[in-house]
C-alpha cells in the first residue's frame, strides 16, 4: 500500500512538471486550431461591414471553395511544389550526398558542412540571396551561368516561377534529407553487402536489390516528414514571389495568407486553412503510423 501511494504521488508530480508545456500547447496551438474551424463558418473580415457584424454563414465558405479556381490552383501548385522539392529534389540530392559521403573522402567534413549551410539560413535571408541569383537581366548569377553554356538568360522568377521556388526549396532542404537518409543507411548491416558481393552482385544490383528495399522504411518516413513540412513553407515563397506571377506560385500557405490578410476575408481564409489542416493531419497520422514508435 505504501508503495502505491508513493507511485500515485510520483505520477501526480510527473503530470505537474509536464503541465506548463501542456498549457502552452493548449493555449497557443490547439485552441487556435479549433477556433480556425469556427471562423471558417463565419464571414468574419478585417474590413467592410462584415468586420463590424460578422455572421454565421454555415457552409457557404466551403461551397465557395469548390468553385474557386484560385483555390484549386493553389492545391495543385502545392502538390507540384511538394512533389518537386521534397519528394524529388531534396530526396534525390540528399540520397546522393548521403551515399557519397559514406566513402572515405578527403574534405568530407567540408562537403557536409557546405551542404548543411542552406538549412541554417533564415527564410528571409534565403529569399534575398535567391532574388539576387534569379533576378532578370544578364547580370543575375543564374543568367551568367546559363550564358556561359551558351543558353539565353531570362527573368527566372517570371518565366519559370514554380520551377524556381522548387529549386530554392530543394536547396534549403538537401541537408535534412541527407541526415535522415544517412541515419537510415547506417542501420543496414555491412554483412548484407558482403554476402551480396560474394554472390557476385554488381553495384547497381546491390543498390536496387539491397540498399533501396532495406531503406524503404526510412525513405517513407522521410517523405512524410518533408511533405508536411513543405506544405507549411511560407516565408521563403513570400520573400521570393508572394505567390505570383498570376498565382503561379501561390502555394496553400500563401493562399491562406492572401485571403486572410490581403483580401481581408478571415472567414474564407480560415476555410482554406481548415482544408490545409485536414490534409496535413492525414499525412501526419500516416507519419505517426509509419513511425510505429514504441512510447
Amino acid at each position, binding site marked *: 500500500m505504501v508503495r502505491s501511494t508513493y507511485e500515485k504521488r510520483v505520477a501526480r508530480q510527473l503530470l505537474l512538471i509536464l503541465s506548463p508545456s501542456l498549457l502552452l500547447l493548449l493555449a497557443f496551438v490547439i485552441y487556435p486550431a479549433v477556433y480556425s474551424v469556427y471562423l471558417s463558418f463565419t464571414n468574419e*473580415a*478585417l*474590413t*467592410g*461591414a*462584415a*468586420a*463590424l457584424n460578422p455572421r454565421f454563414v454555415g457552409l457557404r465558405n466551403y461551397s*465557395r471553395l469548390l468553385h*474557386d479556381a484560385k483555390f484549386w490552383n493553389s492545391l495543385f501548385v502545392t502538390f507540384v511544389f511538394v512533389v518537386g522539392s521534397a519528394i524529388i529534389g531534396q530526396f534525390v540530392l540528399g540520397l546522393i550526398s548521403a551515399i557519397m559521403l559514406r566513402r572515405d573522402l578527403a574534405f568530407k567534413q567540408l562537403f557536409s558542412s557546405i551542404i548543411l549551410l542552406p538549412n541554417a539560413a533564415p527564410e528571409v535571408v534565403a529569399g534575398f540571396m535567391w*532574388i539576387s541569383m534569379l533576378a*532578370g537581366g544578364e547580370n543575375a548569377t543564374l543568367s551568367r551561368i546559363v550564358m556561359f553554356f551558351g543558353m539565353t538568360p531570362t*527573368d527566372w*522568377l*517570371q518565366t519559370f516561377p514554380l520551377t524556381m521556388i522548387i529549386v530554392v526549396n530543394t536547396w534549403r532542404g538537401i541537408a535534412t534529407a541527407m541526415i535522415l537518409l544517412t541515419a537510415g543507411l547506417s542501420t543496414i548491416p555491412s554483412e548484407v553487402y558482403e554476402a551480396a558481393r560474394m554472390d557476385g552482385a554488381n553495384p547497381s544490383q546491390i543498390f536496387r536489390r539491397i540498399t533501396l528495399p532495406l531503406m524503404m522504411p526510412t525513405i517513407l518516413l522521410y517523405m512524410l516528414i518533408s511533405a508536411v513540412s513543405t506544405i507549411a513553407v511560407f516565408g521563403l515563397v513570400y520573400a*521570393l*514571389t*508572394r505567390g*505570383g*506571377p*498570376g498565382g503561379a506560385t501561390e502555394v496553400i500557405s500563401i493562399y491562406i495568407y492572401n485571403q486572410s*490578410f*490581403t*483580401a*481581408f*476575408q478571415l472567414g474564407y481564409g480560415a476555410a482554406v486553412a481548415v482544408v490545409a489542416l485536414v490534409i496535413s493531419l492525414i499525412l501526419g497520422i500516416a507519419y505517426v503510423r509509419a513511425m510505429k514508435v514504441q512510447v
Partner: protein
Amino acid sequence: MNRTALVGLCAITLSAFATLAQAETIRIANHGQAGINAMKSTVARIEKKYGITVEVVEYPSPDKDYMTKLLTELGAGNAPDIFSAPTTAYVADMVAAGYLAPIGAEFKAWDGYANFYDVAKQLAVSPDGETYVMPFMLGIQEIYFRRDVLDKAGISTEQPKDWADLLARAAEIKEKTGAYGLLFPAGVSWGTGAFDEGFQHLLVGSKTPQLATEDGKLDLTGEGVKDVFGVYKELIDKDLMPTQPLLGPEPWVIPKYQMFPEGKLAATTCGSWCYIFDWGRESKNPIPDVEKVVGTWTIPGQTGGQYVLANLAAPWGVNAKAENLELAKKVLMEIGSVETQVSYAVQIGNIPASKAAAQDPEFQKLTELVPIHAAAENGVYLKQAAGFATVAEGVARATEALLRKETDAAGAQQILVDYAREILGEEAVK
C-alpha cells in the same frame, strides 16, 4: 469604515492616473521614410501646441503590408489613434467596418476648412454622407513623356485628342524609337496601382465614367469598363508597354527608375511627385533637367476632352476607438494645416488640398507643383462606394490576366465582375 475609505481613496487615485495617462500620448501610424520625414515638423508642432507626447509607430512600407498590419490591429482594437489610408479606395470599407470616427462637424468648424478645394471636400465624403477623413493632400496624375526622345524622333508632343490618338502616339514612338510607347500600371504586384494610377484615369473619360450607382452599389458592367481594358489590351498585345517587369515583385522599379530615365520607355502615367521623387532632386537616379526634358499630357477622354483625375493622397483618419477622441481630432486638424501640406509636398510631391498653399513661400519654391496645384480646381473624381478596395484588387487581377495574354477586354471585365461578386456578394454588385 476605514476599509471603505481606503478603497475609495484608491479608486480616486487610480482614475486620476488613468485620465492623466490618456491626456498624454497620441499614437500615430506612419509608413515609408518620406512620409515619416514629412510628418516630423508636424509632430513637433503638435507636441508643443497641446503639451502631449506623439508616438510615431513605423509600419511596413508597401501599402499592402501596411494595410494588413493596420487592419489587423483595427480589427483587434489595439490600433494607433491616428493613421492614414494609402488610397481613397480603402476608406469606404473602413467606414463600414466602424473603424473611423466621424469628423465632419469638427472639419467644417475648423478654420482651415474654407480654403480647401471643393474636389477635396467631396472626395472625403463617404457614401453615408458623413466625412471620416482629412483630405489634406491630392494626388493628381497625368501622362509624363520624354520630350527629348519624342523631339529627336520627330514625333508630335501635342496633347493627344482622344484614346485612339494616344494609342497611335504610343505606336509611333515604338516604331520610330524602339522605346516602349506608354505605360499604364497593371497587374497584382503593383497593389492598388493598377486601379489608382491607371484604370480610373481612363474610366473617368469613358462612356460610363462612374462605378458607384445612386443607391451605393457597384456597377462594373458598363461599356466604359470594357473599353478601358481594351486600351490595356492594345498596349500589351502590340508590345507598346513593358509587360515583363510588371509581373515581378516590385513592378515599378524597372520601368520607372531604369527604363524611363534611360529613354527606353517614353511615356508613363505618373503623379505630381514624379518630378521630385522619381526623376528629380529626391531621386537616386535623377534625369538631368527633368522639367525641360519630361513633359506632361493630361489623360484624354475616349472621344475627346481632357480629364484631370484628383484622388486623395493618403488621407488621415481618427480611430473610432481612440482613447481620447477629442484630442485625436484636434491633432487630425493639425495634420490638415497648410504647413503639413507643404511639408508633404516637399517630401513626397503631392498637391496640397488647400488653396492657401499657393501663398506659402515654401510651396512657391516647388515650381514643378505650382501649376498643377492651380489646376486642381478642375479635377474630376470617382464617387466612392463600399467595396472599392475589392474593385481595385479585381482590376489588378484582370490586368494581370491581360499582361499574361490570357484573356481579352471582355474577359478582363468578366474577371473583375466575378471577383467583386465573389468577395462582396451578389447584392452589392449590379
